[in-house]
C-alpha cells in the first residue's frame, strides 16, 4: 500500500511538470531546430483558437518541428500581444493575430503599448470568418433595409448585441449606424457566443456574430441572416445576402486571422517561415478543415498581408473616430 501512495504522489507531482515542459533551448544557426511557440491571444475553443490550431498542426508537418499552441487570453487579446513582445525575435514565437488585438484594440482601448506596424512583421495571412447580422427566424424583416426602416419608424426600439466593445461585430454595427443614422442601441456581450441566445430569446432585436457561430441556427431557421460582410454570398448560406449587394459595401469588417513575428526577426528566418506558411495554408487538408470550421481561406504573402493591415487600419480608425467609440484615457 505504501508503494502505491508513493507512486500516486509522484504521478501527481510529475504530471503537471511534464504538462508545462516545453523543449529546451540551444544556440542555433539553422532554423528551425526546436519547437516553435504559437501564441494565441484568445481562450481555447473560440474561432481564433480553432483556426490557429489547425494551422499549427499543418505548419509542424512542413517545418518538421513541433508547433505548440499557447493560449494567452485577456484584455481583448492585447495580453497575448504584450506577451509575445517579451520574447526573443528569433522566429521561435509566432503570433496568431486577429484584427482585435493588433488593429481594433490599439485604436479603441486607452492603454495598448504596441503598434502593429512598428513592432511586428507580417508573415502570412490565413483566412477570415465573415460577420453576419442576424435576427430571430420568425421576425418580419427580410433585409437590412427592412430593419432600418423599422428602426427609423421606432427610434430607440432596436437593440443590437455584439461580442464586446471594440470587436469586429461592434465596428460593423457602428458602420451601419453611422451610414443610416438610425437610432439603435448597442448592447455589448462578453463573447460572440452570448449574443446568439440573446437574439433567440428576443432579448435584443438583432445581433452581429461570426458566421461560424450563427451558421447552425441560420440553417435550422431559428435565426435569419440579414446581411453578411463577405464580398460574395457563401455557398453554404445562399439565402443570406451580402451587405454590399444591399448597398452597404462599407460594412465589410470580417474577423480575420494571420500570422506575425516580432520586429527584429532576421530576414532569412522570416523568409523560411513565410514559405512554410504558404505551403501549409495551401494544403488541401488544411483548407478542408478550416472551411468546416467556418473559415474562408485565402493565402496572402507578407507584402499583400501588410497592405491588407494598412487598409484595415485606415478603415477602422475612420469608423472609430466617426462613431466616437474610443475609450478615453
Amino acid at each position: 500500500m505504501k508503494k502505491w501512495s508513493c507512486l500516486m504522489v509522484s504521478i501527481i507531482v510529475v504530471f503537471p511538470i511534464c504538462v508545462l515542459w516545453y523543449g529546451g533551448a540551444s544556440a542555433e544557426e539553422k532554423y528551425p531546430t526546436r519547437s516553435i511557440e504559437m501564441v494565441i491571444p484568445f481562450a481555447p475553443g473560440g474561432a481564433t483558437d480553432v483556426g490557429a490550431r489547425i494551422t499549427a498542426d499543418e505548419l509542424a508537418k512542413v517545418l518538421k518541428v513541433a508547433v505548440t499552441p499557447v493560449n494567452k487570453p485577456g484584455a481583448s487579446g492585447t495580453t497575448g500581444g504584450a506577451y509575445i513582445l517579451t520574447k526573443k525575435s528569433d522566429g521561435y514565437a509566432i503570433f496568431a493575430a486577429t484584427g482585435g488585438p493588433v488593429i481594433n484594440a490599439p485604436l479603441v482601448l486607452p492603454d495598448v503599448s504596441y503598434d502593429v506596424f512598428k513592432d511586428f512583421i507580417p508573415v502570412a495571412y490565413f483566412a477570415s470568418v465573415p460577420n453576419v447580422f442576424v435576427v430571430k427566424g420568425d421576425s418580419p424583416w427580410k433585409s437590412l433595409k427592412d430593419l432600418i426602416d423599422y428602426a427609423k419608424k421606432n427610434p430607440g426600439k432596436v437593440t443590437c448585441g455584439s461580442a464586446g466593445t471594440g470587436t469586429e461585430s461592434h465596428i460593423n454595427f457602428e458602420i451601419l449606424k453611422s451610414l443610416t443614422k438610425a437610432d439603435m442601441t448597442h448592447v455589448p456581450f462578453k463573447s460572440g457566443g452570448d449574443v446568439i441566445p440573446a437574439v433567440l430569446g428576443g432579448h435584443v432585436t438583432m445581433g452581429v456574430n461570426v458566421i461560424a457561430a450563427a451558421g447552425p441556427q441560420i440553417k435550422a431557421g431559428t435565426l435569419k441572416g440579414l446581411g453578411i460582410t463577405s464580398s460574395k454570398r457563401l455557398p453554404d448560406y445562399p439565402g443570406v445576402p451580402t451587405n454590399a449587394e444591399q448597398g452597404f459595401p462599407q460594412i465589410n469588417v470580417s474577423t480575420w486571422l494571420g500570422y506575425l513575428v516580432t520586429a527584429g526577426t532576421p530576414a532569412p528566418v522570416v523568409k523560411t517561415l513565410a514559405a512554410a506558411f504558404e505551403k501549409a495554408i495551401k494544403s488541401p487538408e488544411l483548407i478542408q478543415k478550416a472551411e468546416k470550421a467556418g473559415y474562408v481561406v485565402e493565402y496572402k504573402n507578407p507584402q499583400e498581408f501588410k497592405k491588407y493591415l494598412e487598409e484595415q487600419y485606415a478603415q477602422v480608425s475612420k469608423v472609430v473616430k466617426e462613431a466616437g467609440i474610443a475609450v478615453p484615457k
Partner: protein
Amino acid sequence: METLTSLLYGFKITLMPINLLYCFIGVFIGTLIGVLPGIGPSATIALLLPATFKINPVSALIMLSGICYGAMYGGSTTSILLNIPGEPSSVVTCLDGYQMARKGRAGPALGISAMGSFIAGTLSLFGLLFMAPTVADLAIRLGPAENFSLMVMGIAIVTFLARGSMVKALLMAAFGLFLGSIGTDPITAKVRFTYHMRDLNDGIALAPVVMGLFGVSEVLSNVGVAIRREIFEGKIKGLYPNKQDWKDSSKPIARGTLIGFFLGALPGVGSIIPQFIAYVVEKKLSKYPEKFGTGVIEGVASPEACNNSAVTSQFIPLLSLGIPSTGYGALLMGALMIYGIQPGPLLIKNNPDLFWGVMASMYVGNVLLLVLNLPLIPLWVRILKIPYSFLYSLILILCVIGSYSYNNNVTDVLVMAVCSVLGYLFKKYRYEGAPLVLALVLGPLLETALRRSLLISKGSFMIFLTHPISAVFLIITAVILIFPMVTIRRIGKGLEAEE
C-alpha cells in the same frame, strides 16, 4: 419510446471496444486532473485536442466529455483531504468536507461524494434525454433582466452562508463584490482599479483566489502547530459511508441533482452558483443548521450531486443550441467544429450517432468512474498520514503550478500568494471565505446583467418587474430575506453556539 430506441442505439455505439477504451481514458484523465488543483478540464482538452484530430469524432467527443465529468468526480478529493478545491467549482465541498476529514471521516465524505456524483450523473442524464428541448427553451428565455434577478437571489443567500458573525460575513461579501469589479468595465471597456497592471485587465481570476484563501492559508495557519497532526492521525473512522450517512444524504443528493440540473443548463451560470444554492437549501431545511460548516455529510452530498448534474445539463445548450456555458464547453464546441460537426438545432438530426453515442457514453462513464473511485478512497485517505512537512510542500507546489497553468500567467500566482496571506488573516480573525468567493463569482455577472438590462430598457428599472420570470425571482428573494425573521430563534441559537 423513440428516445429509448435511440438510446439503445447509442449504447451500441458506446459499447464498441474502441469507444469503451476512449471513454475509460477520458474518465481516467478526468479524475487525475480533477484531483490536481489548477489543471482543469479546459487546459487538458486544449492539450489533447491535436491528438484527437486523427481519431473518429464520436470516439473523440466521448473521451473529451469524459474528461469534463471525470474532473467533477476528482475535484472533490483535494477539497475534502487538503481544503484545496481541485476545481474552482469544488469550493463548496471544502466547507464541510474538510471538516469531516479533520474529524477522521474523510472516507465517508469521499464515498458519499463519489456515490452522490454517480446518482446525480445518472439521474440528470435521463433528465437530459427526456427534457432537453424544454430546458433549452427555458435557457434562452432568460435574458439580461432574468439573469439579474437570478443573481440578486444568489447574493441574498450570502446571509445564510454565515456561520459566525453576520456582520463579518456581509463584510466579506462586500469585499468579494469589490474584487469582482476590478478589471475592464464590461460595457464601456474602461479599465477600473488595476493601477496600470495590465494583467489585472481581465479581473481577478477565481481559481487562484480560491486556492490561496482555502488551500495555502491552511498551510500557513498550521505551520509551527505540531499538535494538530494527532487530530488527523488518531482516528480515521470508517472508510465508507454507513447507514446513518446514507439516511442523511439521500434527500440532499436528490435536491442537489435537481438544482444543478436546472441551473446548470442556463448559459453563463456555470456550476459554482448552483452549488452554493444547493448547500444553502440543505442548511435551510436541516434540523441542525448550526452544525453546517463543522462537517455534516449533507453539506458534502448535496453540492457534489449538484456539481455533477450541472456538468451533464450544460450539454443541453451546448449540443442543442450550440451555446457553451463554460470554458471547457467552449472547447468541446471548438473541437466539434474542427471535426466538421456543427453543434446546434440540427445536430441530433444530422449526427445521431454522435449525439446518442455521447449520451450513452456518459452513463457508461459514470459507472466506470464509480468503479475507479471507490477503491481509491482508502488510498486517498492514507495521504493524510504523510508527514506534514512533505504534505505541505506538496500543497504549495500544487497551488503554484495550478494557479500558473490556469491562464499561463504569473500574475495569477501572485494573486494566489496575496490571497493566502489574506486567507491566513481571515482565519485568525474568524472571517469566513465562502461569502467572499460567492460574491466574487456573482459580482461581475450581476453587474453586466444589470447594465445590459438598463441599456435595453433605456434606463427604466421596471424591466425587472414587467418580465414575469424576473419578477418571480425577485419575489423569491424577498421571501428569502424576510423568512429568517420568522425563524430567527433557530439561526440565532446557531450563532451563539459558534461564538
